[in-house]
């Protein structure tokens, strides 16, 4: 767990690992039979139905496809937040929050880097942490 995150658990299914350099990485799946790639990780390949999947380490840097500043959200999320899609070089698009910047500083196709962040408070009252992206 990242020090900055304290004891906040990551959301289930995130596939976040903190590397030796202290930086987070996301892991998806790659089909060993047909090469299809997905994030988050899955148990069966959507393309060929193979269950022969291996972990796919995703690049921590991608490009911003689009974003929206969300002011109205279900209970728990800290609003406003920036929802976005980031495209990774592996051909995978990831839904994410953008942190550490202002919406006015964002531009389509800009470079984004993976990080972690506390995004809200869970039903159990504990902070909800997950991956996020920030301008590179």
């Amino acid at each position, binding site marked *: 767990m990242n020090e900055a995150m304290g004891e906040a658990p990551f959301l289930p*299914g995130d596939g976040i690992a903190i590397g030796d350099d202290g930086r987070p990485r996301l892991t998806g799946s790659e089909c060993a039979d047909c090469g299809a790639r997905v994030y988050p990780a899955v148990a069966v390949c959507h393309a060929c139905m193979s269950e022969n999947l291996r972990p796919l380490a995703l690049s921590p840097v991608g490009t911003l496809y689009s974003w*929206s*500043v969300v002011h109205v*959200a*279900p209970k728990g999320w800290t609003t406003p937040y920036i929802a976005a899609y980031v495209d990774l070089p592996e051909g995978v698009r990831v839904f994410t929050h953008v942190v550490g910047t202002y919406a006015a500083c964002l531009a389509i196709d800009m470079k984004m880097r993976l990080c972690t962040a506390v995004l809200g408070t869970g039903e159990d009252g504990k902070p909800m942490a997950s991956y996020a992206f920030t301008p590179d």
Partner: protein
Amino acid sequence: MREVSVVGVGMVPFGKYRDKTLADIAWPAVKHAIQDAGVQKKDIEVAYCGTALGGMMSGQRILKSVGITGLPIVNVENACSSSSSAFRQAWIGVASGIYDVALVIGVEKLTKFGGGTLPLEKEDFEVTHGLVMPALYGMRAQRYMHDFGLAPDTLAKVAVKARAHGALNEDAQFRKPVTVEEVMAARAVAEPFTLLHCCPSGDGAAAAVICPTEMAARFTSKAPIRVLASEVNSGRYMTGFRDMTTPEITVRGAHEAYEIAGVGPEDLDVLEVHDAFTIAEILYYEALGLCARGDAARLIEDGDTSLGGRIPVNPSGGLLAKGHPIGATGVAQIVEVVRQLRGECRNRQVEGAKVALTHCTGGGISGFDHGACSIHIFAR
């Protein structure tokens, strides 16, 4: 397959019915549709009820209040396309010759969730990470504005048009016109959307009775409204870099529907499309072939899709003004175009309308443009 026609329609004004049950919201729509069709209760051989969040046995709960029981009742869930999908099931039953007279209901009561954004499926990865429908459409809008140079005030004019139309519809949830300035100054929801760029949450119900065209005169002297195409699709799951400025499911469905109907977009006189958010209407102009890619703004700016324009879209006010009780929307769109094709719409009548299209799509699921889409084409 036999040609099928709509012979009766009914709906209740969309709005907030906090104190009413789902059944109490819906039975007046059912009664109106049956009376409009001129059928007897005993003539109805099957009923399909579309609802996304109405809960188990919604159709049975509604139909027991008007004593239509003992027949096959099938409840259909397909998110925003629930009742348009139910309509297609009814169409299959009648066109195939299994049934002669079928009833379709669309119903929803969203006030039971207390307001805010639509509750989405919590097993979905993106939903668990904070995706809400306004943000999904907001991202489509931002990308479209970037790629095609759509101006914020043009986007706002979609809402202005919807409200102007809704002001003429006694069944609309919002009947007050708004200005571009009011749209742009409203409370922010998910940028670039303010509250007035988003369809309201609410309750409502709509119903339709269908039968083979050749049988219509037995029940009613009104013109039967023929179903030229009845189409439902699911989205294509994609993990890669989808183009969010073109809704593939609508593009694909429109091609199919036009081919089945033997008409093209140039033959349409009026449309009801799924304008859940302002950008949606822009995207659907292009996806349905009303204009080329990137040209949708001009239709709004030139008034082509306003009442009195070349090809009016959403004369009812659409989801933005009429409202969007999810499961009720598909049949409510059909109610509007049936009334348009019959010439019953008075101050919002599209003069001489002969061919109409309804388009209902939705369902926010990771990896899909939309989960479901249903397109119908009708003719007088």
